[in-house]
Every structure is written in structure tokens, then in C-alpha cells.
């Protein structure tokens, strides 16, 4: 029978939740890296027992952890003295912006809150995206916004500087949560194509494996910026893609739910009948490319569900027409949020969907959202949820 493994990152450690294919009884392992912020944990599609975790701390900086046994044990890749001379062969925690002339336009500043230019300063890794075909290759989205890659299993990381060096870099600016690169989507049909998203710059695409990038924000409209239709400056919260339709993307923006069917060349709004179109996560059903999920919250100044009711909204039409999913979710006095990386789907049939809250609950639905139940209720605030469907 298949097995489900949830990788949960929280403000105070990582947790691994496992169940068999019935998804009824769950075992909880953790906290791993207790006391540290775990922004993201994700497994390699090539080797599902290889997991990567972003462990961060305001005191002690960034640490990358790797497990090769499904989360039972962890190591800092390259963190030990492994050369014949006893010196470290890797620098897994080292994220240094590329300022070499070979990259064309190495940037040193971006726009700051007050409109002045501000130096790029590495703070943390928000998102880890393992390669679809190489267990040693992983992409990392970081704050201040940039994209890094390892090709040696996390021992060393190098910036794909063409993104930051694109013409628009000096116009990027931080959102309230910092200037973070939080979404990385790999096109399964075209290894040269990737999408990323930055708050608050927008969405970008490469068609040459990460050498060059361009903004793909046409159709986005953001009233909170001086030019609502600007090329960059949009606070994109999350983008999702179904692997069978890699040119169709769904976006939860600061306000507005959007979709594109031409790889980001043009976007159109599909908020439809949502009670509010502000939110953070968005995801796509594993087997139905037109079935998508969002968790709207009240507004940018009130980050909690409208009316104290935690509701997931599902559209089976790729947007515009939304149905409310509430069975098993609290419908009174609920004021949690669901962060951008805290929703994920499994690939069983029926599709399971999961999300974690800032109140420490992880909810799961084994039937595509019709019925929900809490898997755990009292974790630290949940930052991220990833699912692995294992044989």
C-alpha cells in the first residue's frame, strides 16, 4: 500500500507526519532541529528518501540539512572534515551573491522601502526545489531575492546571477515579509524552462536553464504600486502548476487570483465569486489540472479568515467559479493564517490535500477537499507543508 509523508516546517523545528494510503492514522516525528525556524523541507523526486531542509536563525544564520534516509537522520552536506587533509570539502551554508564580471550585470543594490537603493544582503533560504532528474541538484530561493543552485547534493551553492542581473533588478523591493524568492517551478516537459516568483517584484521565466530571465507580469494589476500595470513591483504570493500543463500557471497575488495559459505572457483574473481574493497559498489537484485551491483571508491588514471561518475554496473550472469547502474545518472564532508554502497535494486517488496554519494545525483531506480533519493541532506556527507519495 502507498504511504504518505508530510514534511512540515515550523517556527520552532521540522516535523514529519506519516500515514498509510488510507490517510487515517498518522505518526508524528519531531521536532527536528528544535528551536530553529524551518522555512522549507522538500524531497527529491529522483530519490524520495533524500530530503533537504532550510534551517535558519536570526542568531546563527543559514544551515542546509540533508537526509538520505527519509528524515531519520540528518547531516550538513560538506559540513565535516572529509578531505585527506581533514579540511571540509564543501561549504553548504555559504550563500554568496555572484559579483563576478562574467555574469554581465552583477547588481549590488535594489530599491529599499524609502525609495533609496539598498545593498543586497543574504538573510535566509525560503524555498528548496530539488531537480526533477538529478538527486544532487537543488535550486534555492533566498532573501534578499536571488536564485542559487547546488549540483553536489548541497555541499556548495552558486547563484544563477542572470536573474538578479536582469534589467529590472534595481526596481525590486521588499514586501512586508522581506524581499524573498519564494516560488520555483520546474517545467517537466522542458528542462530549460523555469518560473520563479519574488515578493515584491513579480514572476519571471527563463527559457535557457537559468542564464537569462525576463519578467512575466503582463495582465497583473496592483493598485498599491505607483503604476498598477508596471513590468515589476507586483507582490506575487504563490504560483502553482500542474505537471501535465506546464504553460498554465495559477497565481495567488497580494490581491487577485490569476491564471495564464501561455507561460506567463499574459495573465487574467479568475477571482470570480471568492469572498475575498487576498491570500497566500494556491495549489492544483494532482489529477485534475483545472481543479485549484485557495484559502482566502480577509485583507492585507487583517491576515485571518473572514468571519472567523476557516474555508478552503475549490474551483473545478480553473478559476472564476468557486465552491466553499468547510466540512471538518473550524467555522467560528478561527483567526489563523495559511502561509504561501503551507499547502500541498498528494498523488493518490482520490487526491489528498493538506495545509498548515500559523496556529500550529495541519489539516488533511483524503478526498480532494470534501472532508477535512486535523492531523496535528498544536505544532508551532507552520511555515511550509510538502507531501511525498511513496510506494
Amino acid at each position, binding site marked *: 500500500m502507498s504511504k504518505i509523508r508530510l514534511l512540515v516546517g515550523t517556527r520552532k523545528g521540522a516535523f514529519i507526519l506519516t500515514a498509510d494510503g488510507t490517510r487515517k492514522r498518522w505518526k508524528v516525528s519531531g521536532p527536528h532541529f528544535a528551536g530553529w525556524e524551518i522555512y522549507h523541507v522538500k524531497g527529491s523526486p529522483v530519490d524520495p528518501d533524500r530530503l533537504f531542509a532550510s534551517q535558519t536563525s*536570526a*542568531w546563527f544564520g543559514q*544551515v542546509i540539512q540533508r537526509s538520505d534516509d527519509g528524515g531519520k537522520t540528518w547531516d550538513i552536506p*560538506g559540513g565535516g*572534515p572529509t578531505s585527506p587533509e581533514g579540511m571540509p570539502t564543501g561549504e553548504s551554508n555559504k550563500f554568496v551573491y555572484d559579483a563576478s564580471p562574467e555574469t554581465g550585470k552583477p547588481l549590488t543594490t535594489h530599491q529599499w522601502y524609502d525609495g533609496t537603493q539598498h545593498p543586497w544582503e543574504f538573510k535566509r533560504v525560503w524555498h528548496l526545489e530539488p531537480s526533477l532528474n538529478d538527486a544532487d541538484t537543488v535550486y534555492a530561493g533566498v532573501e534578499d531575492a536571488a536564485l542559487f543552485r547546488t549540483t553536489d547534493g548541497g555541499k556548495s551553492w552558486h547563484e544563477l546571477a542572470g536573474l538578479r542581473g536582469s534589467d529590472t533588478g534595481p526596481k525590486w523591493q521588499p514586501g512586508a515579509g522581506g524581499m524573498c524568492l519564494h516560488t520555483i517551478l520546474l517545467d517537466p516537459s522542458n528542462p530549460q524552462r523555469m518560473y520563479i516568483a519574488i515578493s515584491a517584484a513579480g514572476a519571471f521565466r527563463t527559457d535557457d536553464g537559468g542564464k537569462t530571465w525576463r519578467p512575466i507580469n503582463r495582465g497583473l494589476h496592483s493598485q498599491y504600486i505607483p503604476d498598477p500595470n508596471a513590468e515589476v513591483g507586483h507582490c506575487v504570493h504563490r504560483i502553482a502548476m500542474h505537471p501535465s500543463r506546464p504553460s498554465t500557471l495559477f497565481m495567488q497575488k497580494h490581491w487577485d487570483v490569476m491564471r495564464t495559459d501561455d507561460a506567463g505572457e499574459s495573465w487574467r483574473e479568475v477571482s470570480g465569486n471568492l469572498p475575498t481574493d487576498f491570500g497566500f497559498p494556491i495549489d492544483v489537484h494532482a489529477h485534475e489540472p483545472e481543479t485549484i485551491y485557495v484559502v482566502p483571508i480577509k485583507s492585507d491588514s487583517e491576515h485571518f479568515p473572514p468571519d472567523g471561518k476557516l474555508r478552503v475554496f475549490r474551483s473545478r473550472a480553473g478559476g472564476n467559479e468557486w465552491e466553499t469547502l468547510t466540512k471538518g474545518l473550524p467555522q467560528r472564532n478561527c483567526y489563523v493564517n495559511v502561509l504561501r508554502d503551507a499547502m500541498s497535494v498528494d498523488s493518490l486517488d482520490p487526491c489528498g490535500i493538506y495545509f498548515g496554519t500559523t496556529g500550529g494545525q495541519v489539516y488533511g483531506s483524503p478526498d480532494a477537499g470534501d472532508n477535512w480533519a486535523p492531523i496535528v493541532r498544536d505544532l508551532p506556527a507552520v511555515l511550509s507543508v510538502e507531501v511525498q507519495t511513496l510506494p
Partner: protein
Amino acid sequence: MIRVLLPPHLRTLARVDGEVQLDVEGPATQRSVLDALEANYPMLRGTVRDHVTQERRSLVRFFACGQDVSHELTDAPLPAEVANGSEPLLVIGAIAGG
């Protein structure tokens, strides 16, 4: 032999209990002690001082013999009691709430 007491999170990362003991070449200074610490425990690189600038991370402090020596020059000699091993150098995570 220099004695260094790390904060709990860094002891966990380095997989050590209690103090670590380091052989330091030349005078015992912040720089030479941290060089030795990172050579023996490479997983700690970047956690106490920046990878590139080598500056102390802002929420890390160094205490020795009841004094905060965080703002001493990195090449200034540490107190004799630290140099001769009778007192440890304390690496402290600053109190910052939450």
C-alpha cells in the same frame, strides 16, 4: 589548550556536549580561536561570524572572565586566563525574546 563554551544550538550542530577544547597556534585572539573552531567544526562556519566578511554575527556575543569582549579588536589578545585554559571563552546567543 583553549576552552570554548558554545550556545546550545551550536553544540547541537557541532554534535558536542559541554565545552570544546582547541589547540590554537600563536596568540589567543578572537580570530585565532574562531579559525581553530571552524577548522575543527566546519559545520559552524557562518554561524558565529559571516562567511565572507568574517564579522561577528550581530546577535552573537563573546564573554570572557566576566567581561563582554565582543567589541574588542578581533586580533587583540584574549585575557590570559582564556589563553592558559583556566577560563573558557563563552560564545553567547544574545537574549532577544520570543
